[in-house]
């Protein structure tokens, strides 16, 4: 949290959140569980949580996302949700024949103090013969955001499934919340180094799929559970967008329990951050970065040069999950833009410390944790920003400020290409940079009384 002192433009503090810049933890958990093959996300709580999260997520991915619920009624809230959980798990097993159930608890179940691990043991014990692993994660929305729910669900899955074994060459990749296109590209990169990757998780197909002949109980794709089991014996875990306590990450767990080397890296957004990721892969594979990627890097830098004057000194507002913000700041800084406002709805990230460590000149920037969109907008207005980079939830602010919004991350509810946007690596940086530079050029073109068609 940032004190009022270091933020002279800060308005009066409000106890309420006004247009939240975070989502609830169970959403992140559902997203993560969707990235494991044959897994059905299941929320222990009221029916509404599952439905709201489905709608919110479907509006971004434009893919079916079935989330089961124990559909608490009043009796369950008073006497406990055991019976609802039993019926719910049974029905999911019967209807979906899942390989795994990802069970996240909502704030209701957490508040009434359900002993969910015990309940699950009992219920699954009674179900004889048809059981599948149930991965439970506690995700009360009063103590964490969707970014934390996502991490916790990945960690819980690894916690239940990962096994020790003879060390093999595969690399675990904890990518954080990135787009399906990013995930596909990530797999391509690692494969180009001749390495096997175990993505934790991988929703690149499940949340960006194709037309079907028959309705699929569960969409094809996702990291196979066997691969998750093998993650305990992988040669290393690369955690992208690492932040906070390593104890709370899957990579931290694998390191502590099985001695899997933990390589925490910033989200590979922009050249500088991507270089670190590629360097890690060079180290792990013993190979040079393949020419294809060197070429992409070269073209990217060439385009930086071509467009540097359009972006230099432009003040940007960046918001989103902590890892996304840190990654984007890296890109903005390396092309000469000024991240004037850097904001996340999550708290306890050490965002300022991390940003300043990366770019000491940003010490005077407005860096905010645990904020909402009303405050971000106030800061953006005060900073006279030129560009906004974040999810579609910043559209209202962009419109009022008369500044272009370059849509990144999640959610993107007002465009059709959210799942196909690239953010990471040289290719993602190319797309981001092109879009940012074009947005700025377009803005000055549109605002010009002359209307040049030659820039």
């Amino acid at each position, binding site marked *: 949290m940032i004190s009022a002192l270091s933020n002279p433009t800060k308005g*009066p503090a409000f*106890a*309420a*959140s*006004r*247009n*939240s810049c*975070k989502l*609830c933890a169970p*959403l992140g958990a559902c997203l993560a569980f969707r990235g494991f093959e044959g897994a059905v996300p*299941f929320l222990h*709580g*009221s*029916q*509404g*949580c599952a*439905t*709201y999260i*489905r*709608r919110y997520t*479907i*509006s971004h991915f*434009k*893919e*079916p*996302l*079935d989330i*089961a*619920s*124990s*559909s*608490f*009624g*009043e009796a*369950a809230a008073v006497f406990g949700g055991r019976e609802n*959980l039993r*019926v719910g*798990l049974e*029905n*999911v097993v019967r*209807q*979906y024949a899942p390989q795994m159930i990802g069970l996240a608890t*909502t*704030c*209701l179940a957490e*508040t*009434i103090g359900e002993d969910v691990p015990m309940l699950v043991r009992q219920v699954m014990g009674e179900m004889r013969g048809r059981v599948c692993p149930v991965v439970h994660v506690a995700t*009360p*929305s*009063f*103590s964490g*955001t969707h970014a934390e729910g996502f991490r916790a669900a990945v960690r819980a899955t690894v916690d239940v499934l990962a096994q020790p074994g003879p060390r093999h060459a595969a690399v675990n990749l904890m990518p954080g919340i990135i787009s399906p296109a990013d995930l596909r590209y990530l797999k391509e990169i690692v494969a180009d180094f001749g390495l096997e990757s175990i993505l934790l998780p991988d929703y690149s197909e499940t949340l960006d*799929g194709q*037309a*079907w*002949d*028959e*309705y699929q*109980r569960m969409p094809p794709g996702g990291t196979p559970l066997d691969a998750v089991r093998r993650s305990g014996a992988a040669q290393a875990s690369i955690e992208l967008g690492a932040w906070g306590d390593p104890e709370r990450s899957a990579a931290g767990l694998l390191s502590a329990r099985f001695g899997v080397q933990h390589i925490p890296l910033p989200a590979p957004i922009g050249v500088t951050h991507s270089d670190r990721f590629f360097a890690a892969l060079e180290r792990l594979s013993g190979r040079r970065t393949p020419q294809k990627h060197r070429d992409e890097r070269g073209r990217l830098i060439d385009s930086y040069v071509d467009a540097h004057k359009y972006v230099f000194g432009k003040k940007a507002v960046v918001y989103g999950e902590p890892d996304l913000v840190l990654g984007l700041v890296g890109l903005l800084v390396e092309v000469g833009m000024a991240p004037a406002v850097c904001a996340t709805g999550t708290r306890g990230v050490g965002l300022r410390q991390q940003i300043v460590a990366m770019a000491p000149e940003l010490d005077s920037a407005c860096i905010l944790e645990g904020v909402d969109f009303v405050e971000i907008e106030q800061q953006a207005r005060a900073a006279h920003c030129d560009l906004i980079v974040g999810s579609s939830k910043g559209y*209202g602010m962009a419109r009022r400020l008369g500044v272009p919004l370059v849509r990144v991350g999640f959610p993107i509810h007002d465009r059709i290409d959210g799942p196909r946007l690239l953010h990471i690596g040289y290719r993602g940086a190319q797309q981001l940079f092109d879009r940012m530079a074009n947005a700025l050029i377009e803005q000055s073109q549109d605002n010009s009384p002359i209307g040049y068609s030659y820039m």
Partner: protein
Amino acid sequence: MIDILAARQSQIHQKGDHPFDMVCEQPSLAGAVSQRACVFCGSRVVLYPIADALHLIHGPIGCAAYTWDIRGALSSGRELHRMSFSTDLSEREVIFGGEKKLYQALSELIDHYKPQAAFVYSTCIVGVIGDDVDAVCRRVSAERGIPVLPVHSEGFKGTKKDGYRAACDALATLVGTGPTAGIAPQSINILGEFNLAGETWMIRGYYERMGIQVVSTMTGDGRVDDIRRAHGARLNVVQCSGSMIHLARHMEQRYGIPFVRVSYFGIEDTSRALYDVAEFFGDAQLTDRARQLVSEEVSGILPRLREYRQALQGRRAAVYTGGAFKAFSLVRSLRTLGMTTVVAGSQTGNQEDYRLLRELCDEGTILVDDTNPLELSRFLQEQKVDLLIGGVKERPIAYKLGIAFCDHNHERKEALAGFQGMLNFAREVHSSVKSPVWRLARGTAYRRNPGDGERSSDDLLSASPAKEPVSR
């Protein structure tokens, strides 16, 4: 093929020889992946469009985040309803109680935004940690001098319908607190119309053209002061009977204001609504004006509608709505377009609704209550459906199966009510059913109307889009 869960079978009925017997109005079956939301959702849906009120959601962040500015409910003035306010409860407040934070949040927001009233929605955990929300509301109301209304919408305390009721209870405390001077004898309140894409304005315009005064619109483009004087109107005209019938009944009992149930979807239902209201006032001139209005409006859209009908004739539709009342209108509207409804269902219909729906539909139609993605996908395939009408959560189910889709839910940005809305509806349906993309998507098609995109993988390259009977 997907099996139907045993516990779900009594909520499904196929019109045929067997007698009608359908279970409904039940809590959703755990693990069945219901398309329903919760009590909070019901309340939020009803009250959301009141644009000069503060809507504060008391609880952790999720409920507020997922309902921030997602609906197409327009306002002609202030737009406070498009803000998402939450007490964003943290662990500490869950342990020690959230009343203090609620009081502070509420007071600050009222001082800053100066709303005409405030609604405070209780979410799940508020019902568990035992905050005395009513007391906080009373205190803030006394201190700030505006109505501060608790909405008892804890998610688990029933279904969406109970949320409608909680919202109506809150509205009922507002109604009757304003002056009724200047209200004409031929006056109405419009209930259950939410001004999606400006629909309330359209409907209001019809009544005003007939010479009827509209005292309040609830809650589309709603204003607190209008609602406070709503008891001065002579008639409540209630659409979407599920959501606001409770308030209409309350006002009938309390103020002796009768109500009529109407729908504004489709030519038939919109016309009937206007005629029913004219008839209520027993004024021949009103009826004449209604007749004239209907004839003007219908003749304005009929030529285009005929073209759409020609293009859509014989297509098969599935309808899955929140309330069943809208399903009736949709079945009729689809008939106007030459289409047959072969699957019809709702989240919250009651026995009577489904009985009526059964009467309205053809033999073989599947009726379903509180369905889920797997069931729905089975029905869509079994019944060889060409078009699904539903909401955001149903859309990908249709698209994945190569079936056209029309969004008829609260998030839509297209006006589908009234006469113009019928034309928009036809255009929406047409633009999806007749899209050439299905020819590509359906390399995988399980079936299609003869000659419409049915082809083997051999002629992948020879396919070309069909000639469109209607140009846009």
